[in-house]
């Protein structure tokens, strides 16, 4: 068999129901590896840094960050948008690709959904921290209170709050319910009493009876159908936080589709940035095959082209509108004090992904990994450009002012990365990282089709 034919496979040919179950079960049940332990400690240290940052923030307030008038939204909002966007690919892989009956999603959907849950959890913290008095964040929720005050339903911030809550809870349900059969497998594979009880409780007594499966499949289909419009609405709401404001560069109907595309772009980049090391260090090369990486890379390229198109349209619309403030804003992107941010974005998000047209690059894991990291960095700077470059020169020139991040800004950024990886390392260690029941179904289907 030639190498290229092997590359086209979604699963190594030698896998059977037994070998696949043993392989994935072993990953969760075996003792800690040294590499895992190093990753765990590093992410734990960063998480502790994040916790320290939160302590400082609660003690002193948002003044520890570099924000001030006119740039009152900076790292907290950049991080928020960046993280919530990263979650999109997980929902897209498990929802949209399920509805489209794409078989290649089966190897990826579990860790991609985990990525979604953790990214959205991290993301939701930032608007709360940014509140000034974070302990009153629940005031934005409608609940009976003695002040007899209700949320302002016409505000995009309230919509966004409900969107994040709905998205987080639906993602957790989708992820956990989808994991029940695999937790049942782990319960049956576990050989120590502690692990049997741990996975037994998590599996809720799943038995895999035909009637179980019928309801389960019905629910999975419905959740996939709900998750797709949900995730599109979530990123549209995030965009409306901006486009409801009368700020040059924000007040545009372009924003909702632009944010959805950007979310897909960075989400697929994170799916690759997590998948490539997992594949290598956990020996998942036979389950996450070159074909999967190739498909993810193609999705990332497609989303990237759409994002690039949006950058171009923003310039066009500014000049087409003839609005001097809009024109000033886009001119500042090109040659203003933050021009270096724009050119970083162009390099990372527009130029670097063009390499993905080449099949050789799409099959080269190192190149793919570097490009996906560049896209993640580029998407972070894109949010910096959208937020800071729009705010730092408001309509009145006497109010102009620059934004400079402080050490605490950086601590929150890198600490949140640590928190994400902390949760992800725990997931990789204890939970089934591949949807084994779907892979068994895939083996069955591949066998039938010969």
């Amino acid at each position: 068999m030639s190498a290229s034919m092997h590359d086209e496979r979604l699963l190594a040919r030698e896998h059977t129901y037994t070998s696949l179950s043993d392989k994935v079960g072993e990953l969760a049940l075996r003792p800690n590896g040294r590499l895992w332990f190093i990753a765990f400690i590093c992410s734990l240290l960063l998480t502790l840094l994040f916790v320290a940052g939160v302590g400082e923030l609660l003690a002193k307030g948002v003044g520890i960050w570099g924000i001030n008038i006119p740039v009152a939204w900076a790292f907290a909002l950049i991080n928020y948008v960046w993280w919530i966007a990263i979650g999109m690919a997980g929902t897209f892989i498990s929802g949209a690709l399920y509805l489209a009956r794409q078989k290649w999603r089966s190897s990826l959907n579990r860790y991609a959904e985990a990525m979604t849950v953790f990214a959205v959890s991290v993301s939701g913290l930032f608007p709360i921290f940014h509140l000034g008095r974070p302990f009153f964040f629940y005031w934005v929720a409608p609940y009976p209170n003695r002040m007899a005050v209700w949320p302002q339903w016409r505000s995009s911030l309230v919509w966004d709050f409900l969107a994040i809550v709905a998205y987080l809870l639906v993602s957790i349900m989708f992820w956990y319910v989808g994991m029940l059969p695999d937790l049942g497998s782990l319960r049956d594979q576990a050989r120590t009493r502690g692990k049997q009880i741990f996975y037994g409780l998590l599996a809720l007594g799943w038995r895999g009876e035909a009637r179980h499966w019928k309801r389960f499949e019905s629910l999975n289909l419905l959740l996939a159908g709900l998750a797709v419009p949900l995730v599109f609405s979530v990123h549209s709401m995030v965009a409306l936080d901006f486009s409801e404001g009368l700020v040059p560069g924000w007040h545009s109907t372009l924003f909702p589709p632009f944010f959805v595309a950007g979310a897909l772009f960075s989400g697929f980049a994170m799916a690759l940035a997590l998948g490539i090391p997992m594949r290598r260090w956990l020996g998942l090369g036979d389950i996450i095959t070159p074909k999967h990486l190739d498909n993810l890379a193609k999705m990332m390229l497609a989303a990237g082209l759409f994002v690039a198109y949006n950058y171009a349209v923003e310039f066009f619309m500014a000049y087409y509108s003839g609005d001097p403030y809009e024109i000033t804003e886009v001119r500042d992107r090109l040659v203003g004090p933050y021009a270096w941010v724009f050119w970083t974005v162009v390099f990372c998000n527009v130029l670097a992904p063009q390499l993905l047209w080449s099949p050789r690059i799409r099959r080269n894991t190192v190149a793919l990994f570097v490009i996906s990291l560049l896209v993640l960095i580029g998407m972070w700077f894109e949010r910096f450009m959208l937020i800071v470059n729009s705010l730092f020169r408001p309509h009145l020139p006497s109010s102009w002012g620059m934004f400079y991040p402080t050490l605490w800004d950086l601590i929150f950024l890198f600490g949140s990365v640590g928190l994400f990886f902390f949760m992800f390392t725990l997931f990789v260690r204890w939970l089934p990282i591949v949807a084994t029941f779907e892979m068994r179904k895939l083996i069955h289907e591949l066998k039938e089709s010969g």
Partner: protein
Amino acid sequence: MAKEQKRYGCMAFFETPEALVEAVRSVRTAGYADTEAYTPFPVEELDEALGISSTSVPLATFAGGAIGFVGMLVMQYIAAVVNYPIRVGGRPFASWPAFIPAALEVTFLLAATGGVLAMLMGNRLPKFYHPVFNVQRFERASQDGFVLVVRMEEGDTSRLRQMLQGLGAVQVDEVSV
């Protein structure tokens, strides 16, 4: 001790999903209507072979979504029109277009919740004890075993066991309660 112990039924292990589906059809034709099939992944043919009718999951999902949508619109109407009306720029109190986003998100949330609850309740989960777990080999059912259980609380199982073995079962056990 075995005398008093009640029986749940007979459990047969098969190697492939096709053999299991075939066995389900045969035992049901032979008059053993009360059968269960356990598989490590969903096997569509089993629905028809076992005569499983449609589930209540879609209905519960729809009901959850409907409650979320209508409930959220009603709540916003009461809040913005009845309870705490604020005139802003002459806009109507009942600003329906602005009420849609919140209603939409809560629709998604409650629809998903309804579906998950219906799936768990329909499957009687969580349920940590079940007689089938008493058979040691049943742990294969979540990995690579295809298991048929014929409910038979009393009576002689020898005819059934013979039949199951004839259908290609690699092992037949009695399941105690």
